[in-house]
């Protein structure tokens, strides 16, 4: 019975903490779920899925909104030198109409969505773990109001591995965000 009480207290305590945390993160409207560090061989390209979750009841414009004045969702990445972002692939928006304009379709993301980035480390990069930083620019609305455009800072890690074929030069990646950690 004592064990049950302890568990009960733990459950209540953790949920209250979660309530506070949920409220805080709601202010960002979107949360980012960084993937586990992805292993990439030097000189080869790898696609990495970056997962995002939009707060319940909200939507954001897709990367290709139908109306010219709407703010598109855009991911800007700032990789270390010699790590190249070859492509950013956005998901197609979902055509939805909303109570404020039922006759109009908007191209939006809601709930969970992911953006794929194609990363290619050059052959000159020292094998190590690197952080790639960036921002997701978005603008959220609900059924009746729109919130000002926001930027969500994010980062994820990649583990650069030696190319099985071997290379001649081994320059470490330079700034702006090189964090080789072995």
């Amino acid at each position, binding site marked *: 019975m004592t064990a049950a009480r302890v568990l009960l207290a733990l*459950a*209540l305590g953790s949920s*209250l903490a979660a309530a506070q945390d949920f409220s805080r993160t*709601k202010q960002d409207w979107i949360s980012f779920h960084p993937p586990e560090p992805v292993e990439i061989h030097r000189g080869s390209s790898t696609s990495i899925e970056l997962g995002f979750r939009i707060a319940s009841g909200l939507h954001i414009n897709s990367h290709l909104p139908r109306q010219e004045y709407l703010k598109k969702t855009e991911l800007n990445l700032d990789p270390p030198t010699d790590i190249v972002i070859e492509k950013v692939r956005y998901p197609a928006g979902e055509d939805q109409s909303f109570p*404020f*304009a039922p006759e109009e379709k908007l191209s939006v993301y809601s709930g969970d969505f992911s953006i794929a980035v194609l990363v290619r480390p050059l052959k000159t990069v020292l094998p190590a773990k690197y952080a790639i930083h960036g921002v997701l620019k978005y603008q959220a609305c609900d059924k009746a109001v729109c919130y000002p*455009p926001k930027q969500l800072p994010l980062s994820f890690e990649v583990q650069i591995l030696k190319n099985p074929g071997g290379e001649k030069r081994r320059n470490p990646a330079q700034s702006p965000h090189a964090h080789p950690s072995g």
Partner: protein
Amino acid sequence: MKRDPVILIIVAVVISLMLVFGIQKTRHQSSRQTSGSKLQGQLAPDFALPSLEGRTLKLSDFRGKAVLLNFWATWCEPCKVEMPWFVELQSKYGPQGLQVLGVAMDDSGSKEIAEFSRKMGVNYPILIGKDAVGDQYGGIPYLPSSFYIGRDGKVIDRIFGLVSRSDIEADIQKALGPTGQVAEK
């Protein structure tokens, strides 16, 4: 009676989840309701902002008129729904002393705002907004946000988010007051 710890934990989790969503929902709603509410019955803060025509307009220039002060942006879809209503209502109630004022809280340039306003057929002044003016009005965390100001310069009502045309018209009539109703006859 012996209580099953598993059932107790399930009950605790359910209650906890209800607390989480209850707290979140309450905060979300109350933030909408309280922002700017202190202004009701108070003199609307005066400001001076540039218009799309390049003039500087002050709110106090319109003392004696009922003012619908509408904060909006080109990227705000619900704002676009209201604008044609404001155009109609300005035409209908303008002779009785209504003045709609649009404040664009936009990061677009005035050229884009002007083009957007022209496409929407706006027949009332559009001012280029500043965060400082929004702060004077209790902060404008979302759009559209509208303040209804009486002829005496006092805030009669503030509405956050899109509401129906009839709600807007009712607030306009309140702002115009008895003088407006007499003039209508």
